[in-house]
């Protein structure tokens, strides 16, 4: 069963492997630049830390490659249960930097269990959605998988880690779409959220109401249903500013700080300004390796993880960003292609999930570094330094490689 035939070797997704290798090496080059004057042990230096973690990362992905697809499918729910348990574990220890994101098990580095939980949750969701008895055309069918993902997400939100929570939720809608859910239903899930957010801006709310009306009209639900959906959303929208204003100033600021943790001017504003200055001053070809003034003046915060792209933009310019994002786009498209060509539904939906997780990481991280969205502590796959994050990226790559080859198992 596990013998790989030569004919199947042609089927190996080399493009994915090349993309990962390129991004990893690119990351090491940037990390080496910012680690030039780091003093301290292996785990204090982002470059050596990354090199160290690459060993178990690659080994893990190889381990997954030799695991039968059937086994992954069989233990999907067990893995999910483990995922929920491990995100709960930090709450029993001491808070680390005021949060419960990390587990300290006596190693020279801490472990972020939510990273692993996000992979396990995704596999469980793929298994659920690949059941051929599932009636995807019914609205109620899509509620259960959402609840399945909500459980670990809420725990992660409590840690609190909004970034990872977003990543956990990110693959849900794409995977539902892949499993055959009506796009209109997916739209309905998102609709109240849009209603609430746009309600604070009259023009945005008007535009939203028109979009909502047209969507409902096009989808042609029953007349009563259509009216209920439309006015229900408008009602939620109108209610939310009133609810918001009924909160005390203190509560409002708590909510705002939660959405945007570094709201203070010296935090987020300062970081975004420094990041944009670093990127902008890089120009087309950058200032050269190790020459980034913003980087080496330590103006850039968390430069080895969250703002690694700003370092790259400053030292290697727009060209490097263009190449990295294009390679990443092609990498995602390759996964989607494999997903489309996959013979079984489980592999197809899981691959869609991995593609979504990677894309969400890239989009949120990149959009943050260029000031398109508020600061969220999320790293860039393969390039940012990180222990648990690098491991999960390679675990996902192992799974992607495994599921994207149509072996006769």
């Amino acid at each position: 069963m596990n013998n790989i035939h030569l004919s199947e070797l042609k089927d190996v997704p080399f493009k994915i492997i090349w993309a990962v290798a390129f991004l990893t090496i690119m990351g090491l080059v940037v990390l080496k630049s910012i680690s030039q004057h780091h003093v301290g042990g292996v785990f204090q230096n982002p470059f050596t830390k990354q090199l160290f973690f690459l060993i178990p990362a690659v080994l893990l992905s190889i381990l997954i490659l030799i695991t039968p697809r059937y086994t992954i499918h069989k233990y999907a729910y067990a893995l999910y249960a483990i995922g929920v348990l491990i995100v709960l574990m930090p709450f029993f220890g001491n808070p680390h930097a005021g949060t419960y994101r990390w587990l300290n098990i006596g190693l020279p580095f801490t472990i972020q269990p939510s990273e692993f939980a996000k992979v396990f949750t995704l596999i469980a969701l793929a298994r659920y959605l690949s059941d051929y008895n599932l009636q995807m055309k019914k609205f109620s069918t899509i509620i259960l998988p959402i609840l399945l993902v909500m459980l670990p997400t809420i725990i992660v939100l409590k840690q609190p880690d909004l970034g990872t929570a977003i990543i956990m939720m990110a693959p849900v809608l794409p995977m539902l779409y892949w499993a055959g859910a009506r796009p209109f239903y997916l739209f309905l899930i998102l609709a109240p959220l849009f209603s609430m957010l746009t309600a604070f801006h009259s023009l945005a709310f008007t535009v939203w109401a028109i979009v909502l009306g047209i969507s409902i009209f096009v989808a042609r639900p029953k007349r009563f249903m259509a009216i209920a959906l439309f006015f229900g959303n408008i009602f939620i929208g109108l209610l939310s500013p009133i609810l918001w204003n009924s909160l005390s100033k203190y509560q409002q600021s708590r909510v705002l700080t939660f959405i945007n943790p570094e709201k203070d001017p010296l935090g987020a504003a300062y970081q975004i300004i420094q990041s944009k200055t670093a990127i902008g001053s890089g120009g087309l070809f950058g200032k050269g390796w190790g020459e980034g003034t913003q980087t080496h003046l330590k103006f850039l915060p968390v430069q080895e993880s969250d703002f690694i792209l700003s370092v790259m933009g400053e030292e290697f310019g727009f060209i490097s960003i263009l190449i990295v994002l294009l390679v990443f786009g092609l990498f995602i498209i390759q996964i989607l292609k494999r997903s489309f060509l996959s013979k079984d539904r489980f592999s197809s939906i899981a691959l869609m999930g991995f593609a979504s997780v990677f894309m969400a990481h890239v989009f949120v991280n990149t959009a943050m570094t260029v000031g398109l969205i508020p600061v969220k502590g999320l790293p860039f796959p393969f390039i940012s330094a990180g222990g648990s994050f690098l491991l999960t990226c390679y675990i996902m790559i192992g799974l992607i490689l495994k599921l994207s080859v149509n072996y006769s198992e």
Partner: protein
Amino acid sequence: MLKAENIVSYKQYIVSISIIWILVIILLGRFFQIQILSYDRYSKKANTNRIRKITSTAPRGLILDRNGQILVDNSPSYVLTAIPGELKNKGQKFDIISSIIGLDSLEVSKNYKKYYRGKFLPTRLAKDLTFSQVSKLEENKINLGGVYYEQIPDRYFPSKVKASHILGYVKEVDRPIRKNLGNKQRYELGDMIGWIGLEKQYEYYLKGIRGTSFYEVDAFGREVGLAKGLDSQNPEPGNNIVTTIDIDIQYILEEIMMGKKGVIIVGNPSTGEIIGAVSAPDFEPDLFTGLMLEKDWEKVLRDPDKPLINRMIQGLYPPGSIVKMVTATNLLLNPEFDPNKYQRCDGHYQFGDRLFGCWQSQGHGDMTLNTAILNSCDVYFYKNVHLINLNELSSTFRSYGFGQATLLDIPGESVGIVPTSEYMTKRYGRYGWSKGAILNICIGQGELLVTPIQVFNYINLLATNGNAGTPHFVMVDKIPKNIAPKLDSKFWNRIKSDMKDVINHENGTGRSANPNVDGMIVFGKTGTAENPHGENHAWFIGWAELDDSKYSIVVLLENSGSGGTVAAPVARKVFAQISKNTQLSFYE
């Protein structure tokens, strides 16, 4: 297995690919906008309008004596720094610097590596420059591009006393130290942190909060003024602490101990306040400030008299006869013991096959508890100690605070040894020791080891009928609860009257501790502790009562002979000085 077939349609595939490309194009568009279209703006901003966060050192709190006189102050000190990104021809510049400030250029480049934080952040090269050195460097400014100096507050000791073992010292935070700190954010490389003594114990109060200011920096990393719109915060100095030390008393103690080895502790037994204390030999308090040269450090470290050891709390000594009141306490608690029954001292006592001698080899004659204490007769105790066992005696020792830390507010206390039968068995084996061991321990010899601060607490307990405050050096609202033996006041008073006779009786061993000041009554006990490292240690413990105030004292002189002839006169000097000191009086 995995029977469900893939149902993804080509349309779904195309929709998803399109979404991916749209997202990638949005991101690339934004980068294009920032890096290509706004390149000039951001480039200019990066070169001319960089905001640098500079933090400034907060002065540490002062340390004052009980009357508000300054023991530890701050004084400005010049620090030479370099911005690595601006420093060309490092070696040449280091040579210029070393020729001006007289520090080896190897040392300068060592510092450069040690303090390096980033290409454009100031890196410390040398500290404690004098004003004239700074002026000379200023003259050479043209050859020293990238070299700057700044002013930081440094520890400075304006008073006439050293008190180095009490005050302790601060140490520069380097990478290994910072790595092990619990609150890393509060410390930067080059900051000072309390390392020993009160500086360490009260670090939390003494350490201030760093100030922050935001400077605009030009293309060369030079500050061109405060950044607009970002508020600066001034450094917040640390809190002052008021100690219980009296500078004048402390000065006398240090003078007495000049050239000697040992400890004196003087204090108020009721409150536990220490008004003066010396561990000799000590060191100059400013030894650790400034640029400490390796050879100075080696010298202090290699000194056979070990001046860095705080003998008050870390020195372990056999106490000798000064602990006879512990044995007396234990005997008095035994109903079979009659303090007025005579025991004959012939100068020695046969126990099994061993002969235990009294310090006075011709013997003291017939002794009661009272005369045994005032003559410090050993045989009297040998003859009575069969009434108690070793573990009873050791728990009485512990009830006086021996064998445990006193909770003094200086970190690093040793606990000493109070042997129990379990201890003896563990150390010598089941048959390796005999009951004769208690004969040594009951007169403060043998395995028993104590620290002078424990002895200080012990004499305080005796002086206050067990109501002594925990020894401390800093005036605080709340001191930890002290230990005390539970004794009937008739026992306390009996022991006290014996101790009064030690000083005031014509045969008392502590006669020379009495300064003969009107109205001052002195109580005490001498000790002459044999030790394996040479000459006997001389002990005197006691207290003086004057105008409702009590002053307790512990004197320990290492390897200098008998307590009555060497240590007691020291106590007399101190008591005499106290009677002259008008500022000192703690009415209760």
